[in-house]
């Protein structure tokens, strides 16, 4: 049972979670959504959030899921990491996603949602002075990502371009 405590924590769309080494954390099928990993490697703690939209101001309903938006989700993720014992000055980030899955001739705001999500994520991370050490964003491929808080490596899998570690 040496590897008994080792597991993969799965994060769904518009959700977030925290993991401690040796476990890893994963989210699948990122299209225009952005997967943001914020971690403190010295403590072996990482958080992952699967963001759908840049800005919570568009939310029209009363109760909202804060993990859906970059501007509310990233502060919440950082708060959760600190509660779990991460040092805020040691936090680093790696991000992936924000693709354009369909090529349309018209280009309204929804079509450009991938790049807008990436911009909003980077702006939030900058606000908290968290350096982005690696980034695999844009393009037109879906991505599945898995982060290992022990090694600090982000594994990225696509259908058409194989697998890589960042």
């Amino acid at each position: 049972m040496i590897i008994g405590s080792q597991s993969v924590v799965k994060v769904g769309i518009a959700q977030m979670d925290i993991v401690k080494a040796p476990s890893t954390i994963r989210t699948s099928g990122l299209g225009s959504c952005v997967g943001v990993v914020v971690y403190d490697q010295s403590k072996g703690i990482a958080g992952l959030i699967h963001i759908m939209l840049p800005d919570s101001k568009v939310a029209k309903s009363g109760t909202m899921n804060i993990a859906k938006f970059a501007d509310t989700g990233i502060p919440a993720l950082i708060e959760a990491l600190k509660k779990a014992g991460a040092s805020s000055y040691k936090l680093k980030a790696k991000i992936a996603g924000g693709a354009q899955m369909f090529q349309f001739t018209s280009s309204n705001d929804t079509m450009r949602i991938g790049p807008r999500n990436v911009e909003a994520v980077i702006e939030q991370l900058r606000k908290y002075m968290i350096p982005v050490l690696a980034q695999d964003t844009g393009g037109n491929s879906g991505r599945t990502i898995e982060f290992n808080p022990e090694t600090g490596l982000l594994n990225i899998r696509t259908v058409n371009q194989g697998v890589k570690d960042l």
Partner: protein
Amino acid sequence: MTNITSFHLDVLKEIGNIGAAHAATALSGLLNTKIDMRVPAVEMVSFEEMVERGGGVEQVVAGTYLQIDGDAEGGMFFILPIEQANRFIRRLIQDERFDLQKQNNLELGVSAMQELGNILSGSYLSALSDFTGLKIYPTPPALSVDMFGAIISFGLIELSQVSDHVIVIDTSIFEETMTEAEQVNGHFFLLPNPESFKAIFKALGVS
């Protein structure tokens, strides 16, 4: 969306029925084979449940997507598992070696797939329009070959601004000649915007 009852969901089933029946007839004519359809599923699901439909988040599919404008708005997907998409395209372009994930004859095959999505979504939506009397204008469809979750989540973006749930009208079609085990389903997913339900129900005489 809170006051939608099971009766309303049944009415929406009729939309899936009529739309998919027309699309199945069109596909049957195109491929000269018998196409059958299942009873539509109409459900209110979370985004997480939506991306897990039809084989799971990471299943590789060919998906055509179009947006609907007019009296009712929303998004519409026609999703085929990659093997089934290849099978259909091979028959359409009469090239047995065709594979969407390889480079041979890609341009012709992709355009055949796009046209297939265009014809099927078009017959679905024109049946819907005739049935409800609503004027709906689809955008030209776009094609993507990728993970199901990455494709379908794009159709949730617009909805996600107002809700954490989606009402999906899910109808699957399959080739009648295949055995139960071989049957690979094609799915039509109609995802109306929340504001459009009022117009749809009104058009069908349901309050």
